[in-house]
């Protein structure tokens, strides 16, 4: 029997450990004339020089370590679920524990990792550099966002340690169960609310930064694609997050003050909760995936030795995805009870939103066409991103069709679909990004052979983990069940073994990166012959990035 509370206590150890390793890394760093951001000595010392730093690069790394810490926890929780599903019946945990584990897995992965993920880590680190600025517009607000993130995470996780059961609602907090259950839903709700504020403030900061701080000569249409995708994302963070914020507050009021919004016993409407929740949470998928597409749009041109094909089409499709993404939330609720007209409209819009995504795929393909392709680790990740993202996207089309959706709703097929998009899309792009920018962040080169090994093991494990779940879903296995009929045994074994392989790949990747950050060979300032501004400055960058603000011709 494995207790997941134990793993949580473990996670704190990992988290503190990451900071410790980071401080060790600093001592081995080399220097140039001006102190680089890792060596710079401000008014605080030790760990305080990090957690009170307003340097966007240090804040980016704070997010990197905190998010990686939570990611390891979330991945272990996922692994526990796969252990449970390796055989029918009870394997390692009871049904109730399973409910708590998938809830915590969802809350951690969504609210703590993929939603903030790429904008908070790479956006913070590289947005100012890519547009030729010394920092973001509001550096203190930026630090506040990280603190809100940590506070929100702590509040959400405190639900595990309080008296009473861990939350068991799933990450969606559907009414009326979310205010009827006796488990500790309240801290989880309040934590998610605080995390929303962190996200809003980051988005606000990025928009103002891009409006006011682009280097002289960098017109809007000269901005690299990654900042553009952050721009689209920032608007969604700004305009969609408050809706889920107020919705979660209403559930809190419903639990604490007995105010009826969603409780049918008081005349409220539980389906209304679902609408409000998905008005945010569907655009949130685009908060996750747009910056991922941005990274891919930086990596592919660099390693194809070509400018991106159809720059304007990529920019416009980014903004279109951000815009149309607001109007498709209903496709999460096809079976919840809606009028025929709404069903039709939501289904149609869902198909529509696929078009700008497809435009991007074609642009990336066309960028590769007749390029002199250099196969390095970031490129492996980028190309495999295309593969998994297309599977994820096309299975989304299957779910967007009304009649098929009735059959597949709430089955393993849905789970597989969104893991292909959210984990395949965002995760692969994240790993592409970390392997692309690692030499810039640490001024060190990683061991490419181990990095490639990690990629192939991870990629194979990923496919083996999620592909059988498409079959399981079609065959009728519901999601969020800890048990299944014997007919599903074989596919579940495959899937569980895929999980083990994938975790092994993940371990190789993370260990390799940590070792390399410490002991790797010194990296050149432009190891990939990249064309964007971050490659014109030293590795690691100096404190305010540029000795002189560059002029863009």
């Amino acid at each position: 029997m494995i207790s997941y509370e134990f793993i949580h206590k473990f996670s704190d150890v990992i988290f503190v450990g990451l900071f410790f390793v980071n401080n060790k890394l600093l001592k081995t760093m080399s220097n140039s004339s001006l102190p680089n951001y890792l060596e710079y000595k401000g008014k605080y010392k030790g760990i305080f020089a990090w957690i009170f730093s307003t340097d966007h690069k240090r804040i980016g790394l704070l997010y990197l370590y905190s998010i990686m810490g939570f990611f390891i926890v979330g991945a272990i929780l996922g692994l526990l679920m796969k252990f449970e599903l390796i055989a029918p019946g009870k394997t390692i945990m009871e049904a109730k524990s399973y409910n708590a584990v998938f809830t915590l897995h969802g809350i951690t992965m969504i609210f703590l990792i993929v939603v903030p993920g790429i904008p908070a880590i790479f956006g913070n680190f590289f947005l100012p550099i890519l547009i030729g600025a010394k920092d973001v517009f509001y550096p203190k607000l930026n630090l506040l966002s990280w603190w809100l993130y940590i506070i929100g995470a702590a509040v959400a996780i405190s639900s595990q340690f309080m008296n009473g059961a861990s939350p068991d609602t799933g990450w969606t907090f559907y009414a009326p169960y979310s205010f009827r259950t006796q488990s500790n839903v309240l801290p989880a709700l309040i934590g998610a609310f605080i995390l929303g504020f962190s996200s809003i403030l980051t988005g606000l900061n990025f928009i103002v930064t891009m409006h006011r701080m682009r280097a002289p000569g960098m017109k809007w249409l000269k901005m690299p694609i990654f900042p553009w995708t952050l721009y689209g994302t920032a608007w969604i963070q700004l305009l969609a997050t408050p809706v889920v914020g107020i919705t979660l507050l209403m559930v809190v009021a419903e639990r604490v003050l007995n105010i009826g919004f969603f409780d049918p016993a008081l005349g409220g409407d539980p389906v209304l909760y679902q609408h409000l929740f998905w008005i945010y949470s569907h655009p949130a998928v685009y908060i996750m995936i747009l910056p991922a597409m941005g990274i891919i749009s930086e990596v592919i041109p660099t390693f194809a030795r070509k400018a991106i094909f159809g720059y304007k089409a990529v920019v416009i499709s980014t903004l279109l995805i951000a815009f149309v993404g607001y109007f498709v939330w209903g496709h999460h609720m096809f079976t919840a009870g809606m009028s025929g007209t709404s069903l039709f409209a939501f289904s149609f819009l869902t198909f529509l939103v696929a078009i700008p995504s497809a435009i991007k795929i074609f642009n990336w393909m066309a960028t590769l066409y007749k390029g002199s392709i250099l196969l390095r680790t970031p490129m492996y990740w980028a190309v495999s991103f295309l593969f998994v993202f297309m599977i994820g996207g096309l299975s989304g089309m299957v779910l967007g069709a009304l009649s098929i959706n009735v059959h597949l709703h709430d089955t393993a097929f849905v789970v597989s679909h969104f893991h292909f998009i959210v984990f395949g899309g965002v995760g692969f792009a994240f790993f592409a990004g970390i392997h692309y920018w690692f030499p810039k962040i640490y001024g060190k080169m990683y061991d490419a052979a181990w990095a490639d090994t990690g990629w192939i093991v991870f990629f194979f494990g990923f496919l083996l983990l999620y592909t059988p779940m498409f079959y399981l879903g079609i065959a009728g296995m519901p999601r969020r069940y800890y048990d299944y009929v014997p007919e599903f045994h074989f596919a579940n074994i495959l899937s569980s073994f895929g999980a083990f392989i994938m975790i092994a790949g993940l371990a190789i990747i993370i260990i390799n990166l940590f070792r390399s950050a410490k002991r790797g060979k010194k990296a050149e300032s432009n190891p990939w012959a990249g064309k964007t501004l971050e490659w014109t400055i030293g590795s690691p960058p100096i404190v305010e990035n540029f000795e002189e603000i560059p002029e863009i011709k």
Partner: protein
Amino acid sequence: MTENNTHDHYDHEGSKLGMWLFIFTELLFFGGLFIVYAVMRYKNGTAFGLAAEELDVSIGAINTVILLVSSATIAMSISSIQLKKTKLTLILLATTLILAIVFLVNKYFEWGAKIEHGLYPGSESLEQLGHGEVLFFGLYYFMTGLHALHIIIGIIFIAVMMVKVKNGKLNVNRFVQLENAGLYWHLVDVIWIFLFPLFYLIA
């Protein structure tokens, strides 16, 4: 583009842009509640009308006037700081502050009277009235309560601005924070302008 010095960085336009973005966020925050209100009202029109008669229109109207006047005084304080009239700025800000507190005092008595009559979520006498009334008063307390919370935050904002005007940190060259506080106060005002008819007037 603008100067990018992070140590002494003053960009009037940029700061205002940031405040406007924050206001968009606030609008959508309340927007979620207005959606809930609209749905509930559509389903329980008659009950909402009957429940609205329980509210005191005159207190609501007085509070509306108070907020409108306070919006005017804070706007005037922004003009007067540009005319280098520090003392007048402080007087106008103090007036805004006092009006905001009077608003809250009125609110306190209004809520107090309702609660005394047993009209609060979870009370027995409210639950006897039926679903529509329960929903109406639930929304009433939640929305006006959230609005009152914004008034309190606004009071803190204005108090900080007064200190900054007094010690010269806000002056004729640098007054964007005061302008942002004004924007925020207008937002609080505008939200009330919608809450007042929705709860008090449509009977």
